[in-house]
């Protein structure tokens, strides 16, 4: 149970980072942390205690196996995360070129 709780804490740290930090790079790091927390939860959901890998062979009997599907899905979600992160970093670089700062309180031309 404690490990699920720690996972929630990790997610909350990520959200806190996104909501409260002023530096663009720190916001991006917050997104990465929150994303990893969700991925970790997905893997934990599939975990069985003393489970083994689900590979079928003629001479063994599988009694307790780890659910393999979430691991495949998490791979996909990590790749998506990579794409989002790289795009965000590129936008952050361009913002730095234009504004000369990473501080979001100074990048506020749009409002209303």
């Amino acid at each position, binding site marked *: 149970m404690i490990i699920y709780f720690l996972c929630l804490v990790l997610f909350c740290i990520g*959200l806190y980072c996104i909501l409260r930090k002023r530096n663009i790079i720190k916001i991006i790091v917050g997104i990465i942390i929150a994303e990893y927390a969700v991925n970790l939860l997905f893997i934990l959901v599939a975990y069985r205690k003393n489970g083994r890998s689900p590979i079928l062979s003629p001479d063994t009997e599988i009694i307790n196996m780890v659910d393999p599907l979430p691991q495949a899905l998490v791979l996909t979600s990590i790749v*998506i995360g990579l*794409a*989002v992160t790289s795009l*965000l970093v590129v*936008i*952050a670089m361009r913002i730095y070129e234009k504004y000369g700062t990473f501080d979001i309180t100074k990048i506020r031309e*749009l409002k209303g």
Partner: protein
Amino acid sequence: MEMSWIVPLFVGISLLGAFLVSLLGRKIKLLPDILGNLTVLALLCLSVLAVYVVADKGVVVYNVGNWRIPLGITLVLDGLTSFMLVTVNLVAFFIALYAVNYMKKFTSKDKFYTLFLLMLAGMNGVIITGDIFNLFVFLEIASVASYALVAFGTERHELEAAFKYAVMSTVGSLFILLGIVFLYSYTSTLNMADMASILADKGASNLVLMVSALFLMGFGLKAALVPFHAWLPDAHSSAPAPISAMLSGVLIKSLGVYTLCRLFYNVIGISSSLSSILMVLGTLSMVIGVFLAIGQWDLKRLLAYHSISQIGYVILGIGLGTPLGIAGGLFHLFNHSVFKSLLFLNSGAVEYATGTRDLKRMGGLAQKMPVTSATALTASMSIAGIPPFSGFWSKLIIIIAAVQANRYGYALWAVIASILTLASFMKVMKYAFFGQLKEKWSQVKEVPLCMKISMSMLALICLGGGLLFLPAVKEVFLDKAVRVLLEGTRYSQVILGG
């Protein structure tokens, strides 16, 4: 099941188009335009074909890689799907046509069309998929392409808006993924039909409530419902005009409204508390959106706030849950995607000709730009709900449905929001197009041919939109979609049985 081959083509053709444009577009000058438009035209033809297939054969299920239903990814073509496909691809076609001239001022048209087609692939994928994780993947494809498209101009405002949009939308995606994780842990399946039947067997639980809340936050953020709307005015007003039209016209609907309906009606199952939450959020967006819109002087920003308000009408109609309410909501969804994309294209035309979006600096443009001003007038009357334009009929149906369901308060707010919409569009028409022509605009010319064609065609659809509610058309196009939502979780029997 002979016609099931058309189902994967909606994603396949757009991905192929994107690939070819990015591969060959840089070498041959005209190729991005031609290939981009041909791809979208093919998709439009296919989606009209899909409506006939659904009318003829009912629900069509395609199993990717021939895996049996709960194991592999399933693609589903039913009434709601074909309705959404036509909406998305119709609007995308006119926008692609408009972009031929408009995107000339940007340097890399091939990149534009690549991203545009990728976004379209994502949207079509979200609509046709019957697998919840696949839905998430397509949702992310469409979202990532849209972040890049918002930042396409790489100027100060574009970048700022794109960053804000990307961060908020990513957080929304995280909530959606979290919801999917919980649903998977509860049901051990990813197929939406299978999930619906397992959830129906297991009955209500707190976990499903939590998942509903997560989905409401995630998809509500994508649909820009009111507490989650902050990104929309920035992103939609900073993007290039065809992209604003695409985002406001169809992206928020296919990623937000469609997914909300599909998951809440067909998978989780709508409850009275859930539908009242939808109605409250819809009404809030409707009223707050229009109040924020009325004070704007930036034309595109004003239109963006109206998107929030009109999405409120759609959600209100769908949240009512009565047949007439859902029909009104979906009908308004179609109409809104036509007239809002037309309005954004008009704002793009004005910006193209004059270089400004500030209403105070325009004036009398009707004399110089007759096509733009006539189409803008049509779209404004349509969004404000003046008979006989399309927006009037759908708003009328939503209001009648609210009265029939004894929700007089919601009906009253819908009327008030409609009047305020009329007021704010009278302001747009007065400041931008009518009145005295300002001295500095005496050299302004009407926009090029492709832009004119695309705007006029969309205006014609606005004018004839009311015809969709004629019994013969309604039976094929709208009623099938309404029936899918009314069926609720019986969706699973339809898919698993078929």
